[in-house]
């Protein structure tokens, strides 16, 4: 369906720069989309709106914030107390980070469940992982800016991870800090990068969507679109569905912002940073807890790798391994709907990640250390052992012929058009 209009101004612009047809093919009626997407496909657009919210509120906060160790904490309190609606903007930004991660994690697990990472969407998946890594870096540096106790000690602990790198580790840490501890130069560069990275994320999101449009969305059945009878135009069907999703998202988001804004934060971050005293129990923000648990799970040396480096490798490896997922999972079937064993393992993996998150929140004592180690081991086994084996051992259920096949049994306007000759999508 080509883009058409009678408006002379739009036609004038379109002729010189075909931006309207570009939008139409991206999110408009010119973008055919599988008609069977369920509500889990809302989370991509939700992540998009979350990024926009974070950038808008972040720019406004940056106009009031002072990135200096002597003033940062007080400038945040000034935002909370004196700036008009400053408390609202800061609470949106602070909780927006959590909601961004909730949305993105569900988006990722949706991809895992329905096999969205498989050919031909491997690059789409990998670009998504790049976004995740950038988000983690951005969130980490943003958390340092209020210059509370958790900001300071979180920054100290995480930057010290790099000291695990053999030979050059210490020099790298000093370089990251711009000094001999986390101090004013560190705060300044974190602020600069925290402002920069969201726009880098935005750029990668554009690539992510570009890659998405090459083959279109995967769908709950995990089978390819066979022809027009399998699709509906993105607009109005999925735009209006996305709007409804935004509404639900905003309700939950607002409930937290207005009634429990500090629930996901840590009280210690309302104490100004003190380089002489570590809080008794330091934990990262909840969205890092599973990774934190893996970091702490390696308490022993492995051959020439000491425990410190081992933990760092486990933590970064847990995400890097996802880059290999399209090749580790050798099953040709995408959706869990037709993979009875994988479906079970998927839920075990979800439970494993939640368990890791819980372990990450607990002090590193018995029995949590051992539980964390087993959970970490399982996480890697899932990807490195179970998935490759499953591709060979599992017997998938028969796949439907096409997305519209179930509709053929019923009747209705679409059922009629679905009898049209199936044709391969370009």
């Amino acid at each position: 369906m080509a883009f058409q209009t009678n408006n002379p101004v739009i036609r004038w612009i379109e002729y010189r720069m075909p931006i309207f047809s570009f939008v139409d093919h991206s999110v408009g009626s010119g973008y055919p989309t599988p008609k069977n997407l369920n509500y889990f496909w809302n989370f991509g657009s939700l992540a998009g709106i979350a990024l926009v919210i974070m950038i808008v509120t972040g720019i406004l906060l940056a106009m009031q914030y002072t990135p200096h160790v002597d003033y940062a904490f007080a400038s945040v309190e000034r935002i909370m107390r004196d700036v008009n609606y400053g408390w609202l903007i800061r609470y949106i930004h602070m909780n927006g980070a959590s909601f961004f991660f909730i949305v993105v994690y569900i988006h990722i697990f949706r991809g895992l469940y329905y096999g969205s990472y498989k050919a031909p969407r491997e690059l789409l998946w990998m670009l998504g992982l790049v976004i995740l890594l950038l988000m983690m870096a951005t969130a980490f540096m943003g958390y340092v800016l209020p210059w509370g106790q958790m900001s300071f000690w979180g920054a100290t602990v995480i930057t010290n991870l790099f000291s695990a790198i053999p030979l050059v580790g210490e020099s790298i840490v000093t370089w990251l800090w711009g000094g001999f501890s986390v101090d004013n130069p560190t705060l300044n560069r974190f602020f600069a990068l925290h402002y920069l990275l969201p726009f880098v994320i935005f750029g990668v999101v554009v690539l992510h969507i570009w890659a998405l449009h090459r083959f279109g969305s995967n769908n709950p059945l995990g089978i390819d679109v066979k022809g027009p009878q399998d699709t509906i135009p993105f607009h109005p069907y999925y735009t209006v569905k996305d709007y409804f999703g935004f509404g639900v998202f905003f309700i939950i988001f607002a409930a937290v912002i207005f009634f429990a804004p500090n629930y996901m934060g840590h009280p210690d971050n309302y104490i100004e940073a003190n380089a002489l005293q570590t809080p008794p129990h330091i934990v990262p923000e909840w969205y890092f807890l599973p990774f934190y648990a893996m970091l702490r799970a390696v308490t022993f040396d492995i051959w020439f790798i000491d425990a410190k480096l081992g933990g760092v490798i486990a933590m970064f490896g847990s995400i890097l391994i996802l880059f290999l997922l399209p090749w580790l999972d050798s099953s040709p079937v995408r959706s869990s709907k037709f993979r009875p064993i994988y479906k079970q393992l998927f839920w075990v993996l979800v439970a494993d990640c939640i368990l890791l998150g819980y372990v990450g929140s607990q002090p590193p004592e018995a029995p949590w250390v051992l539980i964390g180690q087993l959970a970490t081991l399982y996480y890697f086994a899932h990807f490195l052992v179970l998935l490759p084996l499953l591709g060979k051992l599992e017997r998938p259920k028969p796949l439907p012929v096409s997305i519209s096949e179930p509709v053929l049994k019923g009747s209705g306007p679409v059922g009629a058009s679905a009898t049209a000759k199936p044709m391969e999508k370009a």
Partner: protein
Amino acid sequence: MADIAKSASGGGGEHDGESRRDFLFLAAGAMGAVGAAAVVWPLIDSLNPAADVLALASTEVDLSPVEVGQAITVTWRGKPVFIRHRTEQEIEQARSVPLDELVDPATDESRVIEAPWLVMVGICTHLGCVPLGQKPSEPKGDFGGWFCPCHGSHYDTSGRIRKGPAPLNLVVPEYAFDDETTITIG
């Protein structure tokens, strides 16, 4: 396929639900627009002066060391405030000007509390430069008051604009005499 898109986007068709559909679309669109506007306001308002800025301390000034003919500049809300202890001659000069000669007519009496003390925000009403004329060495312009070097505005001994591009007299801030030699600005 084309039919679906057409009817879904709200054009044509003769279903029973047609008016209900139009109403729904309109109501949702209107509410969405109201919601968006309501979200935009706090974002814009956050850039207005904050409570601490609005509450900035008033400035107390001790006038006793300022001799007749001298002027001092104090800071109030980040802006210079000119205080001149005027001579009899300067007061006379300011009061003898007919109002119809003025660009921004105002009597000298309306611009002071005590005749010798002229208190004004020292910012040219043209484009915000600080006029010269506070120090003895500085040019005072054609009317013995102040001269703005940026674009050549001349102010008289009551701080009224007499010549040049500035549209208004120098602003007199809110102030009060606490006692004979102390004023509080703001």
